[in-house]
């Protein structure tokens, strides 16, 4: 190409400014995490590693384990629910059904975490929809406690992450040529066998990126564990908020955030490695 780079700054400056702002903000978190906490003040003291040592207390370790378990469960259940929807979305020929699935699948994404979490409170509450239904059907005689439990939180989180998973899986599936599936069928494979041996292996990149995104989103989720967990399901996000805004211990909140970020990155790298391994296995 013979473009003169004179105009390049015009195209890069806006993005560079945004990137610099983000990097500086991340640097501020790192900086705070190694500063001493002065109780009752927003100012921070001198250099210290005490914040990171404090992370090894069981209450924070538990929050970490809890968050990882919640995120993993959400990603896996989310995948199991999203895959059929994405598949139907891509392979349905009828236009109106296709549009309907698309609108139903993605509308929740645009309602935000608060509205959706609130809806789940009405579904899961002791006098909410699910308990009323089960009581009316005579399945149970006393309401089941869904609120303030991990099950309740996972259920709502799966709902929160599904739209983005469906979108990512649908993108991946739409790039698979349906001829491969037809070929498998003409060679005598049934629908399930075709799905297991052709479609799913071909969509592994999409599966991985949707799992990764679901994991990262859940890790970051605040309103759902806070409102449905009601303080009884503690996660890194809820802890960071409490440390920051209830105890004003911003240095410690920063250390917890940094640890959370490092953990996310490590897990994502591990997942990436594992899929590379799986893919090479599949090729042989």
């Amino acid at each position: 190409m013979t473009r003169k780079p004179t105009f390049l700054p015009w195209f890069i400056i806006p993005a560079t400014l945004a990137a610099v702002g983000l990097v500086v903000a991340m640097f501020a978190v790192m900086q705070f995490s190694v500063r001493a906490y002065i109780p009752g003040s927003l100012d921070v003291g001198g250099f210290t590693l005490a914040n990171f040592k404090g992370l090894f207390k069981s209450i924070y370790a538990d929050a970490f384990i809890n968050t990882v378990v919640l995120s993993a469960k959400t990603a896996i259940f989310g995948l199991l629910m999203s895959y059929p929807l994405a598949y139907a979305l891509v392979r349905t020929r009828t236009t109106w059904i296709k549009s309907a699935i698309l609108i139903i699948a993605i509308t929740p994404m645009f309602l935000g975490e608060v509205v959706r979490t609130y809806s789940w409170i009405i579904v899961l509450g002791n006098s909410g929809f699910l308990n009323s239904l089960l009581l009316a059907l005579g399945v149970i005689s006393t309401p089941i406690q869904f609120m303030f439990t991990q099950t309740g939180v996972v259920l709502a989180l799966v709902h929160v992450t599904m739209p983005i998973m469906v979108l990512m899986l649908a993108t991946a599936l739409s790039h698979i040529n349906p001829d491969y599936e037809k070929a498998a069928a003409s060679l005598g494979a049934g629908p399930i066998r075709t799905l297991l041996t052709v479609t799913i292996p071909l969509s592994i990149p999409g599966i991985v990126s949707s799992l990764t995104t679901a994991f990262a989103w859940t890790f970051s989720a605040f309103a759902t564990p806070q409102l449905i967990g009601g303080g009884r399901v503690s996660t890194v996000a809820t802890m960071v908020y409490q440390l920051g805004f209830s105890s004003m211990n911003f240095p410690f909140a920063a250390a917890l955030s940094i640890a959370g970020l490092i953990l996310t990155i490590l897990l994502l790298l591990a997942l990436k490695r594992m899929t590379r391994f799986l893919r090479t296995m599949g090729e042989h």
Partner: protein
Amino acid sequence: MTRSLNDKLTVLAGRLLVAAILLFVMLPTIVVVISSFSSTAVLFFPPKGWSLRWFERAVNYDDFRHGFYSGLIVTAWASSLAVIIGTTLAIAIERYAFPCKQVLEGILLSPLFIPHFTIGLGLLMLVSQLNLGRGYPLVIFCHIVLVLPFVLRSVYVSIKNLEQRIELAAASLGASPLRVVWTITVPLILPGLFGGWLFAAILSFNEFTASLFITTQATQTLPVAMYNYVREFADPTLAALSVIYIAVTATLLIIANKFLGLGKILNIETRH
């Protein structure tokens, strides 16, 4: 094609499964709509009587009104600036070679995996160290950074699908790169830009976690006001507000689908 009975049953089971999952996705929405018409202040399901008073309260509640206006200000600025930043960057990446290209792109896509609370906390600490106020610029900047990855995705797709020869023709006739972009590139990718803008606007309007960290009483957006409300009250006002929200969002999406084709915007249209 001849299919055995077994295969037909499998396909039927698959369809039922999809229907059940769709029901799961819609369930909370349906339940919240029904609850919003309840006449009692305590949430029972099904409601014991019907009224519209929660809608009245939702529309007149000061924090919600103020949050709505703050949200509009933040969303309008953030999504428009994000589209400008995203488009210029996408053009630079597609059409030019420059150092640190991947670093720049990597940083701007990183909010996809950096937890939002970390970004919110970082910006809060940054302004406190620089002794800057927590005004609208902070909230707008935060939202730009958070929606940018989605805008980039939408703009990249449009630029990739663009016939580059048209641009080259304009350039060979003597137009400067800026003029080419303004008179050729932008008009041609306008649907993609609009899609990206709409996507960014809806995401920004609903952004919650980072906003909770950086907004004050004066700048709090609607989701933050709603969150504070749920923590204090348990009446169906929020259900009524959610219904308004759902109605507006669904209408916007249906319009976008009709005129632009959501499948195209979201890059999930089949190409075979």
